[in-house]
């Protein structure tokens, strides 16, 4: 890969966000409800503001993997970079490859020791440490990316995430239209609610255009073990799956495996079309910058406690104030115009407030999980513990 391409990749997310905002502003004048909203950023606390995190001039980010993994962690890092650009007066501290153990607490304590008053705890498994940290330091705002804090949420903490399932649902439509065998393959890591949500959304999206389609799921038991990913991909392909997708932190192996066998692939975390020039359909792509900036602004204004952010916050396409932190990656060459139109229609429905998890949602055993006509609640989504009918795979009980 050339250096210029790498640079482009690294800054593609914030650049893309900027481009989207500019485009939206010019095309719709910022008035239309479907335009990407623009976030007003506050970079320092006004006098008199009080509450957790106010007066912060240093912000810490903790990542579970390498911040240059071209995946989940790099996307969070790109958000931090965007925040740093929007607020040059704020010092950004970063610690990457921090395991989901008390090492996270150590890293956070060091950052707090260096003056950080806002901590972004960006990995799912950091949650318990993040909550303890928040209780220990009532003057520090602790923001937990993903996972769910059982209420009451401490006044200086939250969880936040994108409605990833909306994008995955749309990508599922592309997969459902592309498959010839009617078998989709999903390489997942652990059966946590976030992942089950993605698997279900993928299958539901595919079903919406191809009622008989099935999603075959393999859990690898690791966020990044390329050897096991290769094995899972090969097992899925041998079973006849002709579209592969994944919920993994490192994504190259599964995409290359699909391409080598002439199968299609749907990406996750970043646009990996260059790895699969023939089989790439689409994928989901992160853009954390606007949400990070928005949360930090609220904190600096002293308005965090009791705000929408001071909860288990999730953000999707239908937000009128902040752009969704996740959107579809560009389409590959084989995606037909008709498929794109179907996806556009579904996206419009989601923008208008429709949830892909609108009932009837039936699990593998035939049990109705969401009643007809009702949308799944945030708590139902965050605590998802089942696979929908049409998914082949099992959850450890």
């Amino acid at each position, binding site marked *: *890969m050339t250096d210029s391409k790498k640079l482009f990749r690294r800054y593609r997310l914030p650049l893309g966000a900027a481009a989207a905002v500019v485009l939206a502003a010019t095309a719709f004048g910022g008035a239309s409800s479907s335009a990407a909203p623009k976030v007003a950023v506050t970079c320092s606390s006004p006098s008199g503001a009080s509450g957790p995190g106010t007066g912060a001039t240093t912000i810490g980010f903790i990542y579970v993997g390498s911040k240059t993994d071209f995946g989940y962690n790099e996307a969070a890092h790109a958000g931090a970079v965007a925040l740093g650009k929007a607020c040059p007066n704020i010092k950004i501290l970063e610690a990457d490859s921090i395991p989901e153990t008390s090492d996270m607490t150590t890293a956070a304590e060091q950052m707090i020791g260096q003056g950080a008053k806002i901590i972004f705890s960006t990995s799912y498994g950091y949650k318990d440490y993040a909550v303890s940290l928040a209780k220990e330091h009532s003057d520090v705002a602790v923001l937990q990316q993903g996972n769910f804090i059982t209420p009451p949420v401490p006044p200086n903490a939250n969880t936040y995430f994108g409605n990833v399932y909306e994008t995955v649902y749309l990508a599922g439509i592309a997969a459902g239209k592309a498959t010839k065998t009617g078998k989709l393959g999903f390489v997942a890591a652990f059966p946590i609610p976030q992942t089950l949500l993605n698997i279900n959304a993928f299958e539901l999206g595919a079903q919406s255009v191809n009622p008989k389609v099935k999603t075959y799921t393999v859990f690898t038991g690791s966020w990044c073990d390329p050897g096991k990913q290769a094995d899972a991909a090969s097992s899925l392909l041998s*079973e006849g799956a002709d579209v592969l997708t994944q919920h993994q932190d490192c994504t*190259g192996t599964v995409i290359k495996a699909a391409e080598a066998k002439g199968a299609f692939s749907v990406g996750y975390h970043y646009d990996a079309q260059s790895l699969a020039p023939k089989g790439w359909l689409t994928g989901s792509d992160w853009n954390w910058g606007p949400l990070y900036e928005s949360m930090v602004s609220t904190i600096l204004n002293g308005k965090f406690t009791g705000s929408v952010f001071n909860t288990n916050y999730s953000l999707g396409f239908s937000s009128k104030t902040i752009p969704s932190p996740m959107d579809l990656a560009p389409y590959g060459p084989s995606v037909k115009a008709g498929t794109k139109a179907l996806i556009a229609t579904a996206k419009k429905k989601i923008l208008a407030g429709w949830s892909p998890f609108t009932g009837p949602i039936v699990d593998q055993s035939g049990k109705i999980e969401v009643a007809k006509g009702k949308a799944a609640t945030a708590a139902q989504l965050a605590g998802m513990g089942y696979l929908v009918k049409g998914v082949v795979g099992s959850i450890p009980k």
Partner: protein
Amino acid sequence: MSVLITIVAGAVAGGTSILYAALGETISERAGVINVGTEGTMLVGALAGFAAVVEVGNPWIAIPAGAAAGAALAAVFAFVVIYRKASQLATGLVVMFLALGITSLYGASYVSADVHGFTTWKIPVLGALPFFGRVFFEHDPLVYISYFVVPAVWWLLFRSRWGLLIRTAGERPEALRAYGVSPSLVRLVAVTLGGALAGIGGAQLSTALALSWSEGMTAGRGFVAVALVIFGGWRPLRVMGGAYLFGAAITIGSVLQVHGVQVNQFVLDAFPYVLTLVVLVALMRREGQQAPEALGQSL
């Protein structure tokens, strides 16, 4: 039948990186040195092989690059434990962490880089055989090379003059000294050669199996290799069986899930280790394998 083919073919594909590392470790331990740093040796081989292929554009460069990186790291380890008489276990762990750090640092720019690595070669005639064709003769070239490395290591250890020196260094180093050969030098060469093989194993993982690099991608395979050597009784053929058994157990996990069998994933994750341990321990007990007598001892 097709399920069985998938499992056994997956066993060979997934077991090969471990096989290379375990063969290298067999040579090393036969000479009396336990290299727990094999995990690290594989890792540097994986990165060096991957980086070389990305830069040069030809997959074959992965073999010399992986071997050289693995050999270099193993030589450092060997020097410290043989000439500075440091503890083999402690040094091995330090080397492993050293490799993890170095490869994270220098590998950062190769994460998810596109690589034109090894592709699957279907061997004419043999590849058309029922069952065996798909299982053994539809893989990447590094798998085929490993078919020759196994008997080569056996021949080296048990039929060549060099092998006699290596085994003597592991059993009776003082006899070597009396014979006028430096056991230290023999051990150094054996460990370095073992490191080269582990490096090739790592390169197989990154440039043939996974076609990607990510930090810590060996994910414990080096430790499995060390365990296989011990439970495999320091014999190349049995080590080969152990490596494939481990690979098979991982593939069984995937295949069961693909077929929607209700299984507990956490049990599946432990399954490869449990299965390999049970089978090899059962074999070992029956035959009462003896370790090289001077294994782990400083000279």
